[in-house]
């Protein structure tokens, strides 16, 4: 990790709403070249929404998202298409196209964005399948794969264009501990072998501590802390310690609000 190079992702004061509800309350963060940043937080902390903003799938109310020096909400569609070829995304459920074989799924970005002949593309896709340990499963359909294989196929598709930045949404969710650990190792391997910057969104503490260079803890739409694994572990912040120690947060009790909620007259729209 070199501090002198400009960050690959720069988020400045990102605010976003769903209807009247505020979801992200002024997020700022940076991802340095070659680092693995883990965005961590409980359900409803806004981490999936933040990821969707980094991917350009949502438009923010205000604030900026810069990827590789370009403001993704200000550039043209064509520039964005070119930028997207430098980004790889592995979705939580894999999002493999169910009508295509594993090989065709992994090859799709090459087919759409390059003019290589089919044999070359097949070789490139198979090389990535070797990396994620899926060699020989070319002809299988996504419905025939196990949970861990789907995640690995999704990773192979995400890296087939040799992106500068890899995004992983909950890479180990729903997997047994052994397979989850394999996926973590794979992410570390990909970063070391391909020199990518990696953004991982997860709520799994163990996985986060294992792979992260830095961790960004998100809670109720705010960044509680960004720091190295050691810094986060030692953080004096109560909410972070609650999250780390799996303690249930005590909600502040407002009797009147409680009554209003029970009778269905609550007017609060703000929430995570």
């Amino acid at each position, binding site marked *: 990790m070199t501090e002198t190079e400009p960050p690959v992702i720069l988020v400045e004061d990102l605010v976003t709403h769903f209807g009247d509800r505020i979801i992200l309350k002024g997020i700022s963060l940076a991802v340095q070249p070659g680092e693995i940043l883990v965005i961590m937080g409980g359900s409803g902390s806004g981490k999936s929404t933040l990821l969707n903003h980094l991917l*350009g799938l949502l438009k923010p109310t205000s604030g900026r998202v810069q990827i590789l020096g370009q403001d993704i909400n200000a550039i043209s569609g064509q520039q*964005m298409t070119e930028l*997207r070829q430098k980004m790889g995304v592995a*979705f939580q*459920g894999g999002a493999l196209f169910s009508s295509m074989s594993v090989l065709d799924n992994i090859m799709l970005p090459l087919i759409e*964005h390059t003019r290589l002949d089919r044999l070359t593309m097949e070789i490139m896709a198979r090389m990535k399948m070797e990396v994620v340990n899926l060699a020989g499963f070319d002809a299988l359909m996504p419905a025939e794969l196990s949970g861990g294989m789907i995640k690995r196929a999704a990773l192979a598709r995400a890296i087939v264009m040799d992106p500068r930045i890899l995004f992983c949404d909950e890479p180990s969710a729903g997997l047994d501990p052994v397979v989850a650990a394999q996926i973590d190792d794979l992410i570390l391997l990909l970063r070391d072998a391909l020199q990518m910057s990696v953004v991982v969104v997860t709520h799994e503490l163990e996985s986060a501590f294992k792979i992260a260079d830095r961790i960004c803890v998100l809670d109720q739409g705010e960044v509680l802390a960004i720091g190295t694994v050691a810094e986060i572990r030692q953080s004096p912040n109560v909410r972070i310690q609650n999250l780390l120690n799996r303690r249930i947060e005590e909600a502040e009790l407002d009797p009147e609000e409680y009554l209003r909620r029970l009778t269905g007259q609550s007017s609060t729209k703000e929430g995570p």
Partner: protein
Amino acid sequence: MSSLVTTVDKVGRATVQGVSEAGLAAMLLLQALGWTLWGWRRGQPVRLSAVFAQAMEVGIRALPIVTILSITIGAMLAIQGIYSLSAFGAESQVTLGVALSVTREFAPLITGILVAGRSGSALAARLGTMKINQEIDALVVMGINPVRFLVAPALLGTLVMLPALTIWADFIALLGAGLYVSAELGMTLSAYTDELISLLKVNDVLHGLGKSALFAVLIVLVGVVNGASVTGGAEGVGRMTTRSVVHAISAIVITDMVFAFVLTRG
């Protein structure tokens, strides 16, 4: 009073939703045509293989059922035609009635309704499932425009195959009618064919084909808009698929009437 407010509220919301869906459909149509015409210039063409795959699904695989229904409708028209014309002793005029109703109305209508039920619903279900599985998001983040990749091939495939199926339905329905007429009125099939050729104008056939092209656009847009609006998992997919069939068939029947009204008075 409050029920009146609720009703007005409901009507208002439904209207807003209808207008926004029509707007979405119009935008999708323009974008799909735009990608078809200019996509290759950006190095992102609409793939011919995808268009063929859609044409195969929409057109060729529908041939058996279109054939069965067309021959039945043709015979039915001949039966009803002879029955109603017998009141005036004018059974021999049945050919004219059958020829016009098949080419101008029944062939495009029955084919449109069939394709709406077969392919419009399939399109809505496919897009809806892709949406809830994040496959549409996956396309977007790969830099593959979903309109170019999914909508344009469906539109082009249907736009070619629905009129083609309609021509086929014209032939088969007229054959079905001819078989019944020749048996019932003792007329040879070749005499029936000669009469058809002298009675039918190119315009009648084009009237039907023009409608079927319009139906193709309606079926695809209704399917895509409903598929893209899916929320709430498998149940949502089912709901929107049903909605897509109902809307597409309603749109076809209403458009059919408007088209006939405008073109027969002009």
